[in-house]
């Protein structure tokens, strides 16, 4: 594994005159790791009851092993940290990392740097699945009903967009984005219809959460399924970094370099849909995270997935913890759905990217 992270950066290439300046990879990873730690600390510390950062770490260390920190805090504060704030921050990290990693993979799979789970309608598909389960009271698979339905919706949307955007073996950015946006619109309309006709104000409330994207009221029980899916997805993607890199070279080149492009893409579509489905089932549609962060990561460490994926996971985690912190505190005691914040920052970024690339 250590070998994986150092690959791709040659030392001693002779005469490399206009060498691109990049920070050492280990330094970038350490910096991003520190960023996650800082964001998490503030994410746990901030709220209606302010808890000093030192106390946050004291409580967490005490939890890990009682001998690590002497309790100087009230039990109420410990409950707030471990049962209210910590699960939310952990879920933020999982969702952020998952969206960022899935976005990176998706961009390689459709060979388009403007791809994003929400722009391609994948999140909308997951929402339809989730809302269907909610409205129809499906409890066939217990706690897994919701994520499973969201996964199926995500996969169906992704496959539909892919084939709509493709014609004659080519896929232009224009067609891809148009197919994605149109699919997302249709699926959002389906979600709205299901919610409006359900006649249940409580469900309308929770359905709204999926459409706007938010992490309010997170409990530990919500964390495990997406955490498992994101861990699994990231691990598998790290294993297929080389074939994923080949796709960046183009479909024919990838085939010539030994990749079974169609089978590989089908498998990874399923994997990405699994990550996004389980994420959307708990957090709703949080857009642009999977678009912006892969770009920032590529600027930092380059496009080689062996380097980009770990960095994308860390940066995604830190970003969404910070975004959720802002969503909770900017208009306190009111809470802004975090999806609104990411759209407000991500939308302009997307437009800037589009302008820059079409010049």
């Amino acid at each position: 594994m250590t070998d994986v992270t150092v690959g791709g950066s040659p030392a001693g290439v002779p005469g490399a005159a206009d060498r691109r300046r990049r920070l050492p990879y280990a330094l970038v990873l350490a910096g991003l790791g520190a960023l996650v730690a800082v964001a998490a600390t503030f994410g746990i510390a901030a709220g209606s009851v302010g808890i000093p950062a030192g106390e946050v770490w004291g409580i967490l260390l005490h939890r890990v092993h009682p001998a690590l920190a002497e309790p100087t805090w009230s039990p109420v504060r410990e409950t707030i940290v471990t049962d209210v704030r910590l699960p939310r921050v952990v879920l933020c990290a999982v969702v952020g990392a998952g969206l960022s990693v899935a976005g990176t993979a998706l961009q390689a799979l459709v060979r388009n740097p403007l791809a994003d789970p929400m722009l391609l309608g994948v999140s909308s598909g997951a929402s339809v699945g989730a809302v269907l389960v909610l409205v129809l009271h499906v409890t066939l698979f217990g706690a897994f009903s919701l994520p499973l339905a969201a996964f199926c919706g995500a996969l169906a949307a992704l496959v539909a967009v892919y084939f709509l955007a493709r014609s004659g073996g080519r896929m232009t950015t224009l067609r891809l984005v148009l197919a994605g946006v149109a699919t997302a619109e249709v699926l959002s309309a389906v979600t709205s219809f299901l919610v409006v006709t359900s006649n249940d104000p409580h469900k309308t409330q929770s359905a709204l959460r999926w459409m706007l994207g938010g992490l309010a009221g997170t409990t530990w029980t919500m964390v495990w399924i997406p955490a498992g899916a994101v861990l699994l997805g990231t691990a598998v993607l790290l294993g297929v970094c080389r074939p994923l890199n080949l796709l960046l070279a183009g479909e024919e080149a990838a085939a010539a370099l030994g990749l079974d492009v169609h089978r590989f893409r089908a498998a990874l579509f399923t994997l990405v849909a699994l990550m996004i489905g389980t994420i959307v089932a708990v957090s709703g549609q949080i857009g642009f995270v999977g678009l912006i962060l892969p770009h920032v990561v590529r600027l930092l460490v380059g496009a080689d997935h062996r380097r980009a994926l770990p960095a994308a996971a860390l940066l995604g985690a830190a970003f969404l913890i910070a975004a959720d912190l802002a969503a909770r505190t900017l208009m306190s005691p009111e809470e802004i759905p975090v999806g609104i914040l990411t759209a407000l920052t991500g939308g302009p970024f997307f437009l800037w990217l589009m302008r820059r690339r079409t010049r």
Partner: protein
Amino acid sequence: MTAGRPETEAGTTEAGTTEAGTTEPGAAGPGATAPGTLDIDGVSVTVDGRTLVDRVSLTVSPGEVVGLVGPNGAGKSTLLRTVYRALRPTSGRVLLDGADVWRMPGKRLARHLAAVLQEHAGDFELTVYEVVAMGRTPHKRPFAGDDAGDRAVVTAALTELDVAGLADAPFDRLSGGEKQRVLIARALAQRAGTMVLDEPTNHLDLRHQLDALRLVRRLGVTAVVALHDLNLAASFCDRLCVLETGRVVAHGTPRDVLTPALLAEVYRVEAYVTEHPRSGAPQVTLLSGDDRPGRGRRGREAART
């Protein structure tokens, strides 16, 4: 994946310890394979009812360089795509050393056969080094990093194609000719015994055209090269295979194939065929129709005064 790996292990140790840049391109690198026999056996390709390649058969012996020539739309690229597994033939087979390329794992084929494509990837800001290093992929297991041997092979390929100075430059921002050389370097880094090249000299200046084809010859690989420039084809290929509307219309040594009659029939041009003053290879000189006495610039000037 490991079962029946026929590549030679020779050179694995040397390449790992050789000074970067001095590895001889023809010499075996880690996982290098021997030149193979490529047998295109009655291949046809039909897309949407149009027959692009029509029952083409062509056998290339180990180390032989065959040029694929013909006018635009003759099916050269389509035929090559069936060889490097981008397009499945509608009928017929492509065999490498007797094994159907469409029935073996892609990774194994890629260790034995490298392709230089016309397609240019873009958009992702890969560096030149990263693009060339992709050539090592067929030789690697999923989690394996690039070892010293891989880096030596990649560096040698960069040096060979005169792009070592661009190693850390973004591939997207190179000129057409530089991109072409990088893609040839990637195929070189594959260390495959057989190569197919789809107009590798496109975008290249004169010197790099010659260098690229000389390199293919010097590697000693089995090669099929689609070429537009007939004079280059005549100078560097052992045999030429002329395609027209998907069919083989002529096949043989450059001297046998490149005749004024064939050029008139296939390309619809009037041409002289002369001998190259030093190599003796046939050289084609086109008659533009403006070359007749009195019709050139001089002739017109003379008429005006």
